[in-house]
């Protein structure tokens, strides 16, 4: 059948673009509709090469892993990008933090939506970490040779919880202040290193040299605590978590998938 003028035009244009030096400099593969190109698209792309080129057909069954791990990572990305947006409008100063959140709610374009998404994605991430761990446990996927990756996963769980908890203080409202007060009361009770904990008196621990003081940068939840939580929440923990996620994903590829994946 003879091609119509439009088809020929689009073929020609496609050829012009995809055969150009610029295109070829960026993409090392053709359109992924042949086996060679489908392999190339995965291992020449930095984001896609997290995948193997081929997976067992069982891996395509959603009902094994429920996408829980992948979605946890996706929520982490959502949190990173919405968090970056929020950082432009938020200053961790007890005198203006609350007003900045009010501005986000009422004045700034998409400010409210972004904050809402950040909040709910944080809850979703905690929930999906739990879902993912439950799946991994029930399918016995932590068994040799994947023991270490389970340990990395537990550390990521702890980081997720601490990330979520440090973010709780930032709006500097009553909810924030008192939730962190409850939490730091618990830190105060740590055996040996908390002032209200067992054996603290014997070791000479006081309110100004215990673990709570280190956490809050003072004896009350105040300016130093807000700054500490801000830096931990926005920079320190996301970086550490990203490193551990890299190890986590790398080990999945190296140790191989359990089950039908």
């Amino acid at each position, binding site marked *: 059948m003879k091609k119509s003028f439009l088809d020929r035009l689009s073929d020609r244009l496609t050829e012009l673009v995809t055969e150009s030096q610029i295109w070829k400099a960026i993409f090392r593969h053709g359109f992924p509709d042949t*086996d060679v190109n*489908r*392999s190339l698209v*995965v291992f020449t792309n930095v984001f*896609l090469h997290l*995948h193997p080129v*081929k*997976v067992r*057909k*069982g891996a*395509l069954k*959603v009902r094994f892993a429920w996408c829980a791990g992948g*979605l946890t990572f*996706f*929520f982490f990305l*959502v949190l990173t990008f919405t968090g970056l947006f929020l950082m432009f409008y938020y200053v961790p100063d*007890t005198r203006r933090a*609350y007003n900045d*959140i009010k501005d986000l709610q009422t004045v700034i374009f998409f400010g409210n939506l972004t904050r*809402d998404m*950040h909040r*709910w994605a944080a809850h*979703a991430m905690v929930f999906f970490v739990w879902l993912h761990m439950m799946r991994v446990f*029930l*399918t*016995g996927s*932590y*068994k*040799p040779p994947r*023991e270490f990756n*389970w*340990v990395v996963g*537990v550390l990521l*769980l702890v980081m997720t*919880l601490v990330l*979520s*908890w440090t973010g709780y203080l930032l709006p500097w*409202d*009553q*909810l924030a*202040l*008192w939730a962190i*007060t*409850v*939490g730091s*009361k*618990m*830190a*105060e*009770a*740590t*055996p040996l290193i908390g002032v*209200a*904990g*067992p*054996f603290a008196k*014997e070791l000479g621990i006081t309110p100004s040299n215990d673990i709570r003081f280190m956490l809050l940068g003072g004896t009350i939840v105040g300016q130093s605590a807000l700054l500490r939580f801000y830096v931990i929440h926005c920079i320190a923990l996301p970086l550490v978590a990203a490193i551990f996620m890299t190890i986590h994903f790398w080990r999945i590829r190296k140790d191989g*998938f*359990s*089950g039908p994946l």
Partner: protein
Amino acid sequence: MAEKEQTTAFEIFPKDRKKTYGLMELVKGTTSHIEKEPEDTAFCWPNLVYIELISLLIATIVLLAISLYSHAPLEELAGSDTTPNPMKAPWYFLGLQELLVFFDPWLAGVVLPTFIIIGLVVIPFIDINPKGSGYYSFSERKFAVTTFAFGLALWWILIVVGVWLRGLDWQWYWPWDDWREHKPPSAVTLIDLELLLQNILGIGEQVSRIATYLLCAGYYAIGFTIPFILFRKFYKQLGFVRYNLVMFLFLSMMGVPLKIFLRLMMNIKYVMVTPWFKI
């Protein structure tokens, strides 16, 4: 097309014994397989990549819908002169906060969470059952799945109680109660186990205190011994180190509902009192 790839294999010739090679099978496919057996695989692109794309699109839509419908809470400006009642931690920590009713903060907030994390970390090293790897199975790993489910249930029940059933002064409120009205403080007086022993058995202070120490140590001692005697195979499979780790974590976990039970049924505040800490 990769997804239409068929792996119909059939034997053509029996292998000639004099030869070191032979035609094994014919496989239909779109690529040649060199030094590989016929396999049941599909290309990641587009098969898996599409699943990921669809699931993250669904997640985005749901997240956007929730965000448009329900807004992140923001209360009044933080101030230390007014204390909210009740004072609640984020939901994922409310299980621990609920434990504060039954345990001192050093246990509920520090030691028990540490045990949970240590317990989770050591799971792959203490579960030496090789079966049930890579598929859902209860029958092949009854003890592991039951214990895990028990811990999970405990965690979630405490969270549900903390989120939905605790109101003013951390009192128990049903959903149909008036949540703005204070409840009268509980009429029961809590009593330490050692005092209870003194009253019931009529023994001295020192003796009853030592008796509570022995009871607590006895809980672990008996707990360690029973499986050691009755399930020798269990002990032998695990070995000395793993067995003690498993039993310590298991008994500590069971101790939590046990203490809650003693508190609720017998009004016992502490089962053990030392000069440094109370349990």
